[in-house]
């Protein structure tokens, strides 16, 4: 063994001996860390230090569950990594993707795991740090000499950003030296432009920025996160790479010397090997080997700082509600800095593959095979008298709003989620280059003046990059001869089945200058794949404005009149989220005591008081923390003591009215109505999302009722508090944003209390026999308790919105956008763009996805604007108040299934 090699092997062993590192720590490259060295760069399987192409084969174990279902997603993953195209935004949620509400996207997960198998690690500390919660999102590092991660999110209070203070932690994340912006990429990626050394950070940066979604929002890249950042969510499509992913792989591709343009550089080409186990990266579902998904990678040293992956196995667990995307991914355009506007997210993919060679004869024949409805008709009339050379560079912009019709029109096969609704708009831009060559001896079919034997060859090479809003630009160049024959056979594979019927008009004039309108004269062959439940009615609109120049004097007129400028309107019916089934009202026993009615009303009143007090106490605590007059989490000790006292009063209050002769729950049961007689179930029903399963305790007497109300009420109040306060961006109390943050929480708490009390009064009136409506009910008879309650609740709802808009709406003290009150009444915004953004406030990107009781809406919508913040908090408050309200009046309404 060479001395040098022995030396670094010894050094590697010494690393293990002298550090306290765990055996293997992932970094921006896997294997990097204290154990193997912080400068380690990992390379894909097959790299040996020499330049060239590294071919990595990816396959699916044929014996694996879901083997067939995996295949298309794996193909897509291969396509995406091969393209190395960076995209922002790259996160699609909810109705913007084709994934079910509770499903996990297999393709997104596989994209991440395959990245590991190529040698990429996590940009963030991730779970292997054994830190918890958001602390895992700090930039990847070792824990330093003190064997403890030092995590301080700095002045901006955003974890993973450039002002994080990390003590002696040693950075492992390679960053762009010029900007430390992981959402951009340098034109040359190597050690001259990227570094791991924090000393080379731009001025003012304390630690490298990572590509976490929160950091992205801070830097102005909404809904963007590196694929390699650990942390996938259900109902999330992350099928495109970001600049950070691309840059890290490219850094490795600069070879052992980390210098681009030298002999050891390599490129990586992935290929899908099919259902086999003979490949470099094997995918397999095996519940015994993983809890969810993981990449088991083997490696060996190339030298002290370079490791090559020698084999990798991806394991997935089959216990999850996986979504297997069957839509063919487009080949992304490797444009690192491209930004797409995600208006189309229905997992559609369109690939146009025009036949590169056209033969032009006097008769143009268009043969559209993909159009379900439209038929491309070319009616060319061309007269050529001499040799014509024509150059056309048309540009076509096509906009399609497809409607997918599953069984009928879709020519081939439409694959899409059956239950999802979306109305995507597809705008594609393709580039086509066609060259046409005609011989003077063309025979023009219909045209009498044409010289017969002309031959034209048209080569079209359109490239379409469908993005959420794809645009197709075609730039063909033609050199036709007098007797052209055009045969175009492009193949387009769009999804969710847009049917494009291009309008091609070619008008070669006898003069050298020809003007043709269409560019997409290609006769497309569309392949559409759709799941049976979708309906596609594609309508595509194609507009091309080519400019042709012909050097000939023929009387050639070519007119291709493909059926109408296609415009497709696709309506995708989104998969409705699973809804629960309401239970019938509990079969309440007939009351056996005279005091049952009084007990019910007194119980509801005591519950109302308790909930109001708890809401106030918790909000007051949270307000103090935001205002920085208190620290810690809420409820703190003081608040907890108050809540405990209130809980005691609740129990006493209920015992007083429901405890019978001795005014004690249990004990002497004389005149004490059993819970069943009051309409209560035998077990406390709990609350959706409550962390404490202890709510589900048996209800034996009225003490248990009090405990149930306190438990469920506490969980509901906590849900609302957590939404309003847990993710807030820390701010100085003197700042306007701080006031805004407090206003959101306080106004919402006041609203919840008011709604709860109005509702309780309405039920009380019903208990007194004054009406029979459900409370509240805006459609009830005007002046009735239910209608009046609804009106008052609407009023306080309006006041809540006004309060928040005033505090958060910027200089004009109004919300920019229209806010829809929970009863669907729109409150028109004041316009402008000076609202505090959700990111500035510190609000989750997605509202918690609970469903408002009694088949109400799901709250889980993306939060992009202040209006979204207001509507989300209203939705959660609606859920909270309605659940606790219905809990205490079981005699009138079953506990909604959405609350469980």
């Amino acid at each position, binding site marked *: 063994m060479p001395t040098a090699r022995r030396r670094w092997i010894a050094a590697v062993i010494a690393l293990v001996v002298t550090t306290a590192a765990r055996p293997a720590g992932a970094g921006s490259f896997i294997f990097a860390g204290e154990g193997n060295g912080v400068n380690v760069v990992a390379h894909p399987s097959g790299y040996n230090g020499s330049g060239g192409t590294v071919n990595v084969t990816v396959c699916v174990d044929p014996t694996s569950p879901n083997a067939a279902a995996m295949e298309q997603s794996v193909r897509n993953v291969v396509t995406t990594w091969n393209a190395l195209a960076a995209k922002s935004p790259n996160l699609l949620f909810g109705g913007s993707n084709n994934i079910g509400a509770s499903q996990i996207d297999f393709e997104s997960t596989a994209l991440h795991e395959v990245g590991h198998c190529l040698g990429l690690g996590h940009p963030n500390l991730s779970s292997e740090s054994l*830190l918890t919660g958001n602390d895992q999102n700090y930039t990847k590092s070792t824990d330093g000499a003190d*064997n403890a991660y030092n995590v301080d999110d700095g002045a901006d209070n955003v974890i993973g950003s450039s002002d994080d203070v990390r003590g002696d932690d040693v950075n492992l994340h390679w960053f762009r030296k010029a900007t430390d912006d992981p959402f951009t990429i340098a034109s040359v990626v190597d050690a001259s432009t990227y570094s791991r050394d924090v000393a080379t950070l731009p001025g003012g940066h304390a630690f490298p920025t990572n590509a976490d979604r929160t950091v992205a929002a801070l830097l102005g890249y909404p809904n963007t996160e590196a694929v390699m950042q650990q942390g996938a969510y259900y109902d999330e499509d992350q099928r495109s790479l970001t600049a950070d992913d691309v840059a890290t792989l490219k850094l490795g591709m600069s070879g052992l010397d980390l210098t681009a343009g030298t002999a050891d550089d390599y490129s990586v080409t992935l290929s899908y090997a099919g259902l086999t186990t003979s490949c470099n990266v094997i995918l397999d579902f095996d519940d015994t080997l993983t809890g969810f998904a993981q990449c088991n990678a083997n490696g060996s040293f190339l030298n002290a700082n370079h490791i090559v992956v020698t084999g990798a196995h991806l394991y997935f667990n089959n216990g999850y509600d996986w979504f297997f995307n069957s839509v063919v991914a487009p080949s992304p355009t490797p444009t690192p800095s491209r930004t797409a506007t995600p208006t189309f997210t229905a997992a559609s993919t369109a690939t146009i593959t025009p036949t590169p060679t056209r033969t032009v004869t006097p008769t143009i024949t268009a043969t559209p095979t993909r159009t379900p409805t439209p038929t491309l008709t070319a009616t060319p009339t061309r007269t050529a008298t001499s040799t014509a050379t024509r150059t056309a560079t048309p540009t076509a912009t096509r906009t399609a709003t497809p409607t997918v019709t599953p069984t009928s029109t879709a020519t081939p096969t439409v694959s899409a989620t059956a239950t999802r609704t979306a109305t995507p708009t597809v705008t594609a831009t393709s580039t086509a280059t066609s060259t046409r060559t005609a011989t003077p001896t063309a025979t023009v079919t219909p045209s009498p003046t044409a010289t017969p034997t002309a031959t034209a060859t048209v080569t079209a090479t359109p490239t379409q990059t469908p993005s959420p809003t794809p645009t197709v630009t075609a730039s063909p160049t033609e050199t036709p001869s007098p007797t052209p024959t055009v045969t175009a056979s492009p193949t387009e594979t769009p999804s969710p089945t847009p049917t494009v019927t291009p309008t091609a008009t070619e008008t070669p004039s006898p003069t050298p200058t020809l003007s043709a309108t269409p560019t997409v004269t290609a006769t497309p062959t569309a392949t559409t794949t759709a799941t049976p439940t979708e309906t596609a009615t594609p309508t595509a609109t194609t507009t091309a404005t080519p400019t042709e120049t012909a050097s000939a004097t023929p009387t050639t007129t070519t007119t291709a009149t493909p059926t109408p400028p296609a415009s497709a309107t696709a309506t995708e019916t989104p998969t409705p989220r699973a809804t629960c089934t309401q239970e019938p009202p509990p079969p309440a026993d007939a009351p056996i005591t005279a005091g049952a009615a009084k007990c019910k009303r007194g119980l509801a009143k005591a519950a109302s008081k308790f909930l109001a007090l708890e809401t106030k106490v918790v909000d007051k605590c949270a307000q103090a923390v935001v205002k920085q007059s208190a620290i810690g989490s809420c409820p703190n000790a003081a608040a907890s003591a108050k809540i405990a006292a209130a809980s005691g009063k609740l129990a006493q209050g209920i015992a007083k009215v429901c405890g019978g002769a001795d005014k004690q729950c249990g004990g002497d049961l004389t005149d004490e109505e059993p819970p069943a007689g009051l309409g209560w179930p035998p077990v406390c*029903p709990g609350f959706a999302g409550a962390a404490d399963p202890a709510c589900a305790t048996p209800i034996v007497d009225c003490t248990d009722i009090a405990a149930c109300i306190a438990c469920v009420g506490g969980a509901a109040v906590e849900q609302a508090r957590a939404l309003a306060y847990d993710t807030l961006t820390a701010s100085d109390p003197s700042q306007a944003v701080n006031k805004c943050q407090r206003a959101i929480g306080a106004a919402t708490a006041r609203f919840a209390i008011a709604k709860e009390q109005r509702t309780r009064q309405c039920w009380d009136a019903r208990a007194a026999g004054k009406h029979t409506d459900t409370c509240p009910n805006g459609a009830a008879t005007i002046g009735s308790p239910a209608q009046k309650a609804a009106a008052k609740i609407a009023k306080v709802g309006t006041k809540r919105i006004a309060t928040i808009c005033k505090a958060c709406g910027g200089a004009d003290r109004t919300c920019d956008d229209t806010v829809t009150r929970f009863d669907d009444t729109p409150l028109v915004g004041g316009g402008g763009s000076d609202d505090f953004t959700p990111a500035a406030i510190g609000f989750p990107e997605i509202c918690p996805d609970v469903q408002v009781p009694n088949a109400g809406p799901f709250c889980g919508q993306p939060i992009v604007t202040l209006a979204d913040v207001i509507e989300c908090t209203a939705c959660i408050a609606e859920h909270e108040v309605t659940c606790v309200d219905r809990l205490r009046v079981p005699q009138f309404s079953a506990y909604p299934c959405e609350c469980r």
Partner: protein
Amino acid sequence: MAATVVRAMTTMLVLATSVAAAPLAGDVATLPGRGAIIEPARRSDVAVIVYREVLGEIGGADRGPTLTIFGDGRMVAHYPRYMKRAGDYELRLAPSELDALLRSLAAKGVLDFDATATRAATRASMMAARQRALATNTPIQLFEAVDASTTVIEVAVERYVAATPGAREVRNATTRAAWTGLRADVDQHPDVPALRDLAAAEQELRALRERAGFTRVR
């Protein structure tokens, strides 16, 4: 908001303030559960055993399935909404079964799991493998399980005395054993008994979670 976070891999021991903190024995090679004194709370509102699989690549709050066993024997298996079995399921253990389970976990070292010592043992195992490679002039074989789940087992007891000689009595304590990539590390380091035992404990709890008879409660 400065905070220094100590590696969470170390066993966490939370003691009641009235009880002097006493370090538990940490010999990873012993099985101190046999003959140990273990007294859990018998109340229905006290979680005696919590077994969690914290999934590596999953983000958000609810990051994996959980099995919670209360002092009265009630077991609640929770599966997040993105799992096929999404929901909460209940089944009851007899008191004798709960006692046997606690003893079994103690015998597997869960109540005395010392992550620092175990980490040192795996490091020694890896070092030995590398030195063997150097001696035989063969390439060092590296392995990494990226995104592997973290196994967390927490046990709360009112009274515990390990079976090891001289072990001190501990009252009102919650022990926490956590390890990332347990399954893979057991394969990689079969010579580290603590990992093997912890994996066996996890397997026992997983089997319990999968036991027939659970009833969905929400």
